[in-house]
C-alpha cells in the first residue's frame, strides 16, 4: 500500500507534507524542475512507508491511505504512481 494525494491539492500545493515526509517521497519539491508547472504534488508509491505524517500535516485533507481514498478520487491512485513512471 502507499499513500495518495488527491484533488484538494490542485492549486494548493501547500508543501506541509513535504516538510514532514520522513522519506522525502513527495515530489516535485520546490527545488526540483517542473515544480511550477505541476498542478499538484504526488507521492512515490515505491518510497512511501505508510506513516500517515502527510495526512496529519495536510491543511486541505488531500492525503489518503490508498484504501481510504474516496470513490470519486480513485483515479488519483494511478495518477500519483503515473507521475513517477513517466519521469
Amino acid at each position: 500500500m502507499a499513500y495518495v494525494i488527491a484533488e484538494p491539492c490542485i492549486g494548493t500545493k501547500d508543501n506541509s507534507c513535504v516538510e514532514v515526509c520522513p522519506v522525502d517521497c513527495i515530489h516535485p519539491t520546490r527545488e526540483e524542475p517542473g515544480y511550477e508547472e505541476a498542478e499538484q504534488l504526488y507521492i512515490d508509491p515505491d518510497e512511501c512507508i505508510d506513516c500517515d505524517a502527510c495526512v496529519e500535516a495536510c491543511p486541505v485533507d488531500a492525503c489518503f491511505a490508498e484504501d481510504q481514498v474516496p470513490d470519486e478520487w480513485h483515479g488519483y491512485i494511478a495518477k500519483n504512481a503515473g507521475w513517477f513512471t513517466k519521469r
Partner: protein
Amino acid sequence: MSEVRVAVVGAGPAGFYATERLLKAGLRVELLDRLATPWGLVRAGVAPDHPNIKAVSRVYEKTAALDGFRFHGHVDVGADISHEELLARHHAVIYAYGASRDRRLGIPGEDLPGSHAATDFVAWYNGHPDAADLRFDLSGRRAVVVGNGNVALDADHALEALAASRIEEVLVLGRRGPAQAAYTTPELRELGELTQADVIVDPAEAAIDDESRAWLESDAADGTARRNVEIVGEYATRPSADKPRRIVLRYLASPMRIVGTKRVEAVELVRNRLVHEDGRARTASTGETDKLACDLVLRSIGYAGAPIPGVPFNERRATIANEGGRVAPGVYTAGWIKRGPSGVIGTNKKCANETVAALLADLEAGKLSALSADDLDALLDERCRDRIDYAGWERIDAHERALGEREGRPRVKIVHREDFVARASAT
C-alpha cells in the same frame, strides 16, 4: 571556514534528520547513542509487524554514508562523559535523545507484581537491551491497558500477537472520550484488522458529548481526532466476528487503585465526565465506581524525558528548556526531548530542521565558540571501552539479518551488551 564539528546525542529519527541537515551544510557530525545500535524507536518502539515503517531506516543509512559522519554507540552522555566535556570538544551539541521514562499513574497498588509500564512491555517485545531481563507473566486471561496513545495500542497489539500469551481480553482505558484520544489513525484502524481479536466498543461510551462534537466540527479540531471518532463509532456498531480474543476500548474511566494481595487481581475505576474549559476537555469524577478483575496492568499514559546534568530542563513539561530548539550558546535540542512525546516519525524531520536552521544561523552570526579541547577520541577510548562505531553496527546488522533469515524473520535481535560488543568486532 575551517571544519565545524557538531555532536548529536541520540541516534533516533530526530538525531538522524538533524545529522542529515548538518552534513549537507558541510559540517562534521559525531552521533552518539547510549545504545549499541542506531535508529532509536524505529528499532525499539515500532512493532515488528510494521516492516514498512521500519524501512524508514534506509533513509538514515543514506545519511550515515555521507562524508563527515561518525557514529559512537554505547556512549552515555551524562554518565560516561559530561555535557561540559562534550561541549568543549564541539562547536555545538544537539540533544535528541528522546523521552525514555514512563509516566506513573500515582495510584495505590501500582508496584504490585503484574503491574508494569507499557513502554517496558513494548521494549521487551521489541528486543530493547534495557528490557532484555524483564519477565512478564502472560498466563492470565485479562489485561488492562491504561492510556489512549499509540503505545497503549502497541501494547495491545503485542498482547494479541504473542503466541505465548493466554490473554483473551484486553481492556484499553481512556480517561477522556474518543475525540480526545491521542493515538494516530492508522494504529487505531489496524486494531480493527486483527485476525485474532474482535474490537468491542460500548456505543454509550463512544457517544460524543455536544461540546466535543462542536469542537470536532470547528477549525480548532485536527483531522486525526475526526477520523478517530469516525473509526471508534464504526467499532461500536460492528457485530462480533467471534474471534478468539477481544480488545475492548473503554472511555471516560480512570483507575483509582490496583488491588491484589500478592499480585494484581483487579483495577478499581471511577467513571468520568468531560468538563470543557478554554477549549480544553478536562475530566471530572462522577463518583460512580467499578471494579474490573484482571491479571495484568500496563500503564501507558505517556513518555517523559530525563534531564542531563548541566542542561537546562523544564520539569513540568519533562523536556529540555528551549526556544525553537535553542537551549544555551552552542546547545540545541530536537525531537521528543525538545517538544515532548508527540507526532509521528516525520514530525521529527520538521522539528530537527528548525533546530539546525537555528544552529546554522548562529554559526553564520559568529555565535558558536571555538573548541576548547580536541581529544574526543582519546576521551571516548578512556571512558567507553565498549564503544561501537558504524562499521561495528553494520556487522551487528548483518549478523541479525542472517540469524533472522534462518528463521524466516526479518531479523533476530541481539539484546545483551556483551553480545553487541563481541559481534561488532567479529570479522
